């Protein structure tokens, strides 16, 4: 589904990504973790072309992201993405947030788009908020709407860029619950997160990054059991201590 092949990216002389390689099969859940500045957010933004990269190739569902001939908008419409800061559109009601891209990008009728949006809103448990605006919702609620908005495009896979990092601790669970539900339904997911509980529960594999490199790419059991690299061991011991 997603194939990352020898991808490198640099700003001037600063190497952000170095020779990254990874494969995500259909239905797999991949968790990407690593210290801040390790390039994990950049990597996931390269997958749908939000960040350009200089070398290598990323292929999503048979389409090359870096190819200048690729219609990136068309590709992105099929790839759902959820951001750290939710990024709902503040001037639109929740209903419009859910419907607008379906109408303008997929060409659905307003009626159909709103119907689909409200169904997904119900799924994330927020039917009562349909007429509100993003600024009137809590962070956790906003992030659940953001997930519903991404799902409203019927994506073939979902990218999550630290979806719980900007949330108060008590709101993390409500968002993770939605994500676990998605994973259990067989959605292909690539998730940048430090939520190791989530990783243990639903991830198939864990990718560990450091200084722009993929240091470790291992099945969940192997990663949490005995990570091969010393750097990953250090990282795990630090974040799992408490």
């Amino acid at each position, binding site marked *: 589904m997603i194939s990352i092949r020898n991808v490198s990216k640099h700003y001037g002389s600063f190497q952000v990504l170095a020779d990254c390689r990874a494969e995500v099969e259909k239905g797999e859940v991949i968790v990407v973790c690593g210290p801040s500045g390790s390039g994990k957010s950049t990597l996931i933004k390269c997958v749908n072309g939000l960040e350009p990269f200089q070398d290598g190739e990323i292929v999503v569902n048979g389409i090359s992201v870096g190819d200048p001939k690729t219609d990136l908008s068309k590709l992105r*419409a099929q790839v759902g993405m959820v951001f750290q800061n939710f*990024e709902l559109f*503040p001037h639109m009601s929740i209903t419009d947030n859910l419907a607008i891209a379906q109408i303008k990008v997929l060409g659905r009728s307003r009626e159909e788009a709103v119907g689909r949006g409200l169904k997904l809103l119900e799924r994330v448990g927020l039917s009562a908020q349909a007429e509100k*605006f993003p600024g009137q919702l809590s962070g956790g609620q906003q992030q659940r709407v953001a997930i519903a908005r991404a799902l409203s495009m019927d994506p073939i896979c979902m990218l999550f860029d630290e979806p719980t990092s900007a949330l108060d601790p008590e709101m993390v669970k409500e968002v993770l619950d939605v994500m676990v539900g998605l994973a259990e339904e067989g959605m292909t997911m690539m998730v940048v997160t430090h939520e190791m509980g989530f990783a243990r529960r639903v991830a198939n594999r864990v990718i560990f990054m450091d200084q722009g490199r993929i240091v470790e790419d291992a099945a969940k059991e192997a990663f949490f059991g005995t990570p091969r690299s010393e750097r990953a061991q250090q990282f795990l011991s630090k974040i799992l201590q408490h």
Partner: protein
Amino acid sequence: MGYHWNWGVFLARVPSGETSYLGWMLSGLETTLALSLSASIIALVMGSVMGVLRTVPNRWLSGIAALYVEVFRNIPLLVQLFIWYFVLPELLPSGIGNAYKQMHPLLQQFAAAMVCLGLFTGARVCEQVRSGINSLPRGQKYAGLALGFTLPQTYRYVLLPMAFRIIVPPLTSEFLNIFKNSAVASTIGLLELAAQGRQLVDYTAQPYESFIAVTLTFMLLNAVIMGLMHRLEAKTRVPGYIGGGT
């Protein structure tokens, strides 16, 4: 001080007898309104287009917009007006130049002042549109693109609606400036409000009455604009939104 107040002067007939001095003032007000409103439209359109171009990831387009701002912001308004009115018609291809010169003199003055004020203020609006767009979190653009919007759609549906809401207060002061700056057009002979005020002084030697009337009219105009812009701001306010963001 021996000044002879005479508020009745406004009702006196002008020398040609076709109207009263009040009629002159009203026709001046009309010209000021027409000039300022048409220039505002030019400024808003030009400023919006150029402001967007300043933020797009294309060096040529943003360069063109930056050049526009530099040129129109760095030359005094009065000099720009003289260039539009006296110099440019001579530089135009003779066909267009002559057509312009054959227009009614009043239309010539109006056209030059309108384009001048519009483009001058457009450069300032451009910078405000740019700062409005840049004040939005970067993630908003990403979110629009990630949903499959093209870049123009992302501007249309995501970035500009918020950017314009944010810049309503500075835009208000630009509109106020257009009305005030429109008085500059009197230097090329356009009989707008300030020019009519001066004309009235020339004919009646009642400067206080004349300029008190002009001053109050400008203040009233600006109060109306401010009121309208406040209503616009209140009407487009986003529920629950608290500025800036991350």
